[in-house]
């Protein structure tokens, strides 16, 4: 069947694998011998998007580097649930220091490897959104500016989940957290605040910036692969739904990540040297309600009377993304597909 001219494989382009595809076209996650960088027995909640995102990204990086990979980790859920002393779920060399210094630690690791002539070993640093956009932001910006040879991966679950769901700089507008309660005339998090870190990273002009989600496995692995083929500072921002903090069903983790993209709220793109070079188009566009309604953190927006005005405002955020990144394919582009 290898010479078959038929390109269509039922689920080849979306599911993890397919028995009819060549091994090379399947995702790393469909391979029996995948690294399982983050192995079983970790203490993440049921349906944790971050555990999933970390394994997706690191397994892909392990494949890209032929297993020569070390990781620095900021404090956060990912660190706490994976390494309660003396157990570890990591099956790669892994180092944790402080909440705010993961980019600096990774910089040091890369520098040490260079000094020792081990540039074959690559460095990733990873953190949640709190460690990235708030607490580690200064270190990260420095790492970008120095163009250190590190891939920094942010697993964005849009709040400080590990400590009890407090707002972070990545918490979206109107979302309820422990520190932005759903009360008053402007319930939940405020509009117009927070940090769009992928775009801040692009503004640093670093070699590679990309966004991904746990719902688009092929896309995520391709981006990690691309990142590992480049030297210098690289940034990958992965949306990882959190059943606990988002008050969503544990089975909806991937569905929510998908809806975040399909509504336009979380644009998928790649940028190189300060310019957006590629965008993943929306395949089946949905209104933001489809995404918001599955989450308890937006419950105050719905029901009677609800806050349709705020829903409309969130839709505007999505529409703005769609316009800014060209997320909806034009007629001509669809022809090409």
């Amino acid at each position, binding site marked *: *069947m290898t010479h*078959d*001219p*038929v390109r*269509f*494989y*039922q*689920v*080849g*382009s*979306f*599911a*993890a*694998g*397919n*028995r*009819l595809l060549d091994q090379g076209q*399947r*995702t790393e*996650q*469909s391979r*029996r011998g995948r690294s*399982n960088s983050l*192995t*079983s*027995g*970790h*203490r*993440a*909640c*049921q*349906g*944790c*998007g971050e*555990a*999933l995102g970390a*394994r997706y990204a690191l397994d892909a990086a392990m494949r890209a580097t032929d297993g020569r990979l070390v990781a620095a980790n900021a404090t956060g859920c990912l660190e706490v649930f*994976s390494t309660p*002393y*003396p*157990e*570890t*779920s990591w099956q790669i060399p892994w180092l944790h220091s402080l909440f705010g210094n993961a980019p600096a630690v990774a910089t040091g690791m890369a520098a040490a490897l260079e000094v020792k002539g081990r540039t074959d070993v690559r460095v990733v640093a990873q953190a949640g959104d709190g460690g990235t956009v708030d607490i580690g932001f200064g270190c990260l910006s420095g790492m970008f500016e120095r163009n250190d040879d590190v891939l920094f991966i942010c697993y964005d679950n849009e709040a400080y989940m590990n400590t009890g769901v407090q707002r972070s700089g990545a918490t979206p507008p109107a979302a309820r957290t422990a520190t932005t309660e759903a009360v008053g005339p402007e319930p939940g998090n405020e509009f117009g605040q927070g940090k769009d870190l992928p775009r801040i990273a692009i503004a640093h002009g670093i070699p590679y910036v990309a966004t991904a989600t746990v719902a688009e*496995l092929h896309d995520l692995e391709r981006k990690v692969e691309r990142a590992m083929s480049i030297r210098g500072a690289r940034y990958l921002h992965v949306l990882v739904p959190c*059943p606990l903090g988002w008050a969503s*069903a*544990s*089975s*909806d*983790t*991937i*569905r929510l990540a*998908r809806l975040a993209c399909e509504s336009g709220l979380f644009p998928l793109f790649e940028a190189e040297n300060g310019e957006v070079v590629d965008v993943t188009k929306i395949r*089946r566009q949905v209104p933001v309600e489809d995404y918001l309604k599955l989450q308890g953190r937006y419950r105050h927006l719905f029901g009677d009377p609800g806050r349709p005005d705020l829903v409309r405002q969130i839709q505007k955020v999505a529409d703005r993304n769609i316009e800014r990144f060209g997320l909806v394919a034009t007629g001509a582009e669809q022809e090409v597909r």
Partner: protein
Amino acid sequence: MDKPFAVTLDVGSSLANRTGSWRVERPVYIDRMPPCNDACPAGENVQSWLYHAEEGAYEAAWRALVAENPLPAVCGRICYHPCETACNRAHVDEAVGIHGVERFLGDLARSSGWSVEVESPPSGKRVLVVGSGPSGLSAAYHLALLGHSVTIVEASPELGGMMRYGIPKYRLPRDVLDAEIAAIRALGVGVETGRRIDDVAAAQRDGGYDAVFLALGAQLARRAYIPAADSAHILDALSFLASAGGAEPARVGRRVIVYGGGDTAMDSARTARRLGATEAVVVYRRTRDQMPAHASEVEEALAEGIQMTWLSTLARVEDGAVVIEKMVLDEHGFPQPTGEYETLGADTVVLALGQEADLSAVEHLAGVATREGMLEVAPDMTTGSPGVFAGGDMVPAERTATVAIGHGKKAARSIDAWLRGEEVVRPPRHELASFDKLNTWYYDDAPRTVQHELEVVRRQTGFEEVVAGLDRERALFEARRCLSCGNCFECDNCFGVCPDNAVVKLGSGERYAFDYDYCKGCGICVSECPCGAIVMVPETI
């Protein structure tokens, strides 16, 4: 205990932490009934042969197909494919063109010379099959495969029943039919053609048969009283179609009126056109929506220039003309006469008013019951007479070849069990894999492959086959459009999406297993399974 300062414990893996104990629900792999299989009157396991065809394993696909139905090349052409009506893919883009793949496999089997062998040891039992239409052939085939000695007795000169004497060649070329019948005969099935059985009980007794399958069909054309001039040329559709398939087709003249609204009426009108009629008009007393003919037949007929006069009855037939009366639908949807008449030119009138079974052969059979001109059978195709089974058009059911093929198979299993003194054991039927069980996000977008049709001019003048088959590449594409509803097809999604690595991939053909030591029961695998082959069940605590 020689440890560094402040270190008291050895480093260990989190594998020591059996997170499966958190679980209150567990995922379980299941198989659901795909809608195509559910809808197939012949009981085909459509999804399983498509599964093989997706790999290009066409012989394996054909073998899975003929395990249930000996006539795939025929069915791929003439079946009205309820499987496609039920297909879940219709909710995504268009139904999978199952019949195209089926036909491709049937034709490929013929050109490749694949054949089925009888593997069961001879049972020593003899079974008489009366009639050689689809149900008779199907029963004979399955009985032969089960090791029984089968004899088909057929009143007509050749085997095939309505497939030969009713269905026009442009829908079913006779070489296709002949080949599949020959394959059934090659299993050692005995055949007596040109012998009409008038008394089933006597035939069974005299022939020393252990069981009988009756598949006499429905060959009496239903009549209606229509006043007609002596010189009027009136034919019934069955003899008209039978003659059209023979050496000396009936002569039809220039203008032909076909009275009736079923598939036979469509076949008659389209056949009349091919026999030289310049005008063929179908007269039907109700509306287009109410026509019993299948929509595809009506569309193909219209494309060939067949005219339709709905809401009209035939009042009388004159010399060279018919008089029709206009009808209107009453509030219950029934046609009522209006008293308005119209005259249409007509050299020939073909009556296609339905068919009835000739039950005279079972009159002497004790215990059998008839109802509305049909032979009563139980769901397992048994009649009231022990050892006598029946199916096809002579029993109450939808009258299509595929239904008849299903009857034949079911009857063969019942006969086999009866001959062994056993009961037929049916495995429990799986729950239906309805569309809401699927996660269609994962399926590639792929519109259906078009089967090319013959140009209209050639369709109006000859009996060449109208619809072309799929070539190898298109058949493969079409097979791969299958969603595999309700049954794992090894897409690795569950293995990929588990946040706890609690899905074990067992390898090609072996599917997956859950590692309940670590599965936390989040249910992501259930949500993200494209085909709905996983369910959550509560843990017993």
